């Protein structure tokens, strides 16, 4: 393996190795997703398979499958859970796009732009319920004890994710201005880290260890990984090409309370603060290109983007530290190296 560093004795996978692992686990999970979403119902099944067929990093399923393997299980133990995670994730994406008024997803028009809001919501609902099937099928051979652990982890994730989404939407819709860095971390923990990193890690750990390892042990790793991932995503949204099929500066048009926006607002005063607050109080349609350009320049001038990158890197460092504690003593494997390499990867991914 072309390793780039060692974390507590575990060789962290290089970017190329991580891409390969994502592809391997992603293909296995995608095949399972396609199997479960197969059907011919009019106005429904084409919509269900649309987002999954557009590709994606497949990070969540890969985290689940890698954890299942490092905690003793084989690929079969994790692939059903990974499929459930991916199906649920795509259902949530459809609803997110509607709530955010997003126009582009993975390089193509969002589902509600293609089919209308009503059919898109219905498809999102159907995907979320469809996720239960591969999950139950995966858990059946493992017994009720393991199933109960998975249900507990899933219920917690569902609650935390809904709270996180509510925070972000509430801040925007009620034009909440006085936010701190801690508020941002709290929101990102709930909205991103729980569903994207903590829950997949926990599901993999539970099914891989057959319920004998502690799901709480991987929470801090998932949390810091998720925060680093979210900050990096937010920074990329301000770049020339966000790199994941979303429109540039979409977060500014949506007035998303990112770490950079919170930083910029705290760093400026007087006329700049007034202008920024006025911008945030506008509707999405009323936010002009010129004002977005001004805000982007303000963030550069105040060092907010540089700060975001630095905090993202620091969170990745904290994730590496937590990895060294949570996965200490596990036998070396490609999946363990994959997990070790994720923290540096999230802030340097292609």
């Amino acid at each position, binding site marked *: 393996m072309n390793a780039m560093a060692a974390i507590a004795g575990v060789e962290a996978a290089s970017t190329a190795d991580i891409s390969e692992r994502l592809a391997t686990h992603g293909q296995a999970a995608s095949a399972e997703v396609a199997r479960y979403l197969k059907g011919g119902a009019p106005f429904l099944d084409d919509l269900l398979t649309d987002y999954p067929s557009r590709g994606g990093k497949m990070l969540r399923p890969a985290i689940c499958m890698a954890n299942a393997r490092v905690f003793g299980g084989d690929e079969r133990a994790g692939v059903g859970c990974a499929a459930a995670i991916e199906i649920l994730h795509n259902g949530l994406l459809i609803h997110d796009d509607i709530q955010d008024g997003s126009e582009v997803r993975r390089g193509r028009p969002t589902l509600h732009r293609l089919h209308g809001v009503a059919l898109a919501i219905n498809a999102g609902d159907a995907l979320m319920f469809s996720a239960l099937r591969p999950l139950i099928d995966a858990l059946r051979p493992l017994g009720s004890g393991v199933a109960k652990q998975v249900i507990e982890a899933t219920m917690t994730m569902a609650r935390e994710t809904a709270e996180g989404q509510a925070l972000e939407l509430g801040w925007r819709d009620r034009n909440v201005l006085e936010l701190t860095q*801690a508020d941002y971390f709290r929101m990102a923990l709930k909205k991103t880290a729980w569903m994207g990193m903590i829950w997949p890690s926990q599901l993999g750990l539970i099914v891989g260890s057959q319920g004998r390892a502690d799901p709480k042990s991987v929470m801090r790793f998932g949390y810091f990984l998720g925060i680093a991932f979210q900050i990096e995503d937010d920074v990329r949204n301000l770049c020339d090409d966000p790199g994941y099929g979303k429109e540039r500066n979409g977060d500014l048009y949506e007035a998303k309370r990112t770490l950079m926006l919170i930083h910029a607002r705290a760093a400026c005063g007087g006329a700049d603060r007034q202008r920024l607050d006025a911008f945030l109080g506008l509707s999405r349609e009323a936010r002009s290109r010129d004002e977005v350009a001004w805000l982007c320049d303000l963030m550069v001038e105040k060092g907010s983007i540089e700060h975001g990158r630095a905090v993202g890197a620091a969170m990745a460092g904290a994730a590496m530290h937590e990895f060294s504690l949570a996965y200490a003593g596990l036998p070396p494997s490609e999946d363990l190296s994959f997990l070790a390499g994720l923290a540096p990867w999230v802030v340097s991914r292609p």
Partner: protein
Amino acid sequence: MTTRKTPTAAEPAADPAARATRPEPIRMGPVRRAGARRNGPDFEGGAGERDEGPLNAISEDIAQAVRVGYDVFSENLKRGREAANAFSQGEYSLGQVPHDAGEALKELVRLLQQTAESTFDILYRLAELAAKPKPPPPGPSPVPPFRPGAGDAAARNGPAPHTLAVTVRFKPPAVGRALTTSLARPQAPTSPAEIKASPLLKREGAAPPLAELSFDFDIASGGLTATVAVPEDQPPGIYSGTVWAATQDTPLGVLAIELGQ
């Protein structure tokens, strides 16, 4: 690490090839000038307006961010634990809800809990049934044991229970108590030296992990003794780690202890 171009809204349209580039770093080493800071706002308080605040090292901002990150996580865990406690005791925070509605909701929660449990119990039984061989062929039933109770004796002499008793000792003694009393029995012959545990991590808040653990055979109980070394200034709380046997891939369980004040 790949780098990326610093964005400005006024820049021309995206060049995909240029996306993964970052500008040359402004500095190549740490800022050592006392109090040096680039536009670092105090945004933990959030409310104050300032264009030019006092200069501090940027690394202080980042260290503070990591501290806040840990605080937020600990606070979230604490809230989750309190909610779980209330839930397990049947309180559900329904003190302010009208009695009838509260009772109805409690009943619904109980029902959902039971339903979920029953569903998976049924699924488990179905899976067990599906895994069993075909029904016995028609014909006379197997002859029962000649002596009454012989079957019970056979059961007593059959496979050992699947669990292994664990006693935890502390060094120094009496600084804590064990929350784990049993682990899964290894599937293959295993010596105590082949049993390891990952460092015991504190469940809430930051603390150095307890990494000095050893296992021994306990003749009295026929199980294991785990010895945990506890440094003098170790913070109190619950610590846990995963126990592994070198002879198998799946773990034996979680070793959890509680350290007192």
